């Protein structure tokens, strides 16, 4: 079964209670995101961007085994 690595940062990590997890998953990104919103209901109203393998993306790719997905709340460096 293919797996993806999902990472959480900042306020999002506080919602999920963890910084990362490995999830058995095969399919499109949006399906994974919906699964996560069901698992962590506060994600439904949270503000974040999504990266796949360290690149922020706007579309809905099919995920591959071993991909790293990250939920990135608004950046606040400096």
């Amino acid at each position, binding site marked *: 079964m293919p797996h993806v690595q999902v*990472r959480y*940062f*900042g*306020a999002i*990590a*506080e919602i999920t209670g963890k910084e990362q997890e490995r999830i058995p998953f095969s399919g499109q990104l949006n399906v994974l995101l919906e699964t996560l919103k069901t698992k962590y209901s506060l994600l439904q109203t949270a503000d974040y961007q999504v*990266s796949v393998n*360290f*690149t922020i993306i706007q579309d809905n790719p099919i995920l591959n085994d071993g991909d*790293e997905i*990250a939920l*990135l*709340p*608004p*950046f*606040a*460096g*400096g």
Partner: protein
Amino acid sequence: MNSPYLINGPITDYWIKSQLFRFHQHHQTGAHAFFLGQVRADPYKGTHVSAIEYSAYPEMIETVIHEIESELFNHFNEIQTIEIRHSTGLVKVGEVSLFVLISSAHRKPVFTALENCVELIKHKLPVWKKELYEDGSYNWVEPSL
């Protein structure tokens, strides 16, 4: 994972001085401009910020900093050097959490490039900050753009 662009804790005076010393070896350089981001004791609901806890996505930091550098090198072709460091972990009020240095043969491009660089960092660098207050409470900070 560690990143060469991240420093654990505050960016110290000693580290900053060592960078400036290093650039004395660049004999084709005529101008350095640097920016230091420092933690402020902002008021918040009857208390004040005592420190900021920074977190980052180290694997992505490297890619984003390379993008920022190439954007600046392309736009300001006189620029010779760009150095960026950001803190992770705890940085107390009055301590430095961001260091940006731009060098060039002449003075004019460094000022504009420095401002551009700091703005790009604010918009693009995957860093988050949790403000810690004197009364023990905390808050995740929304970006100040």
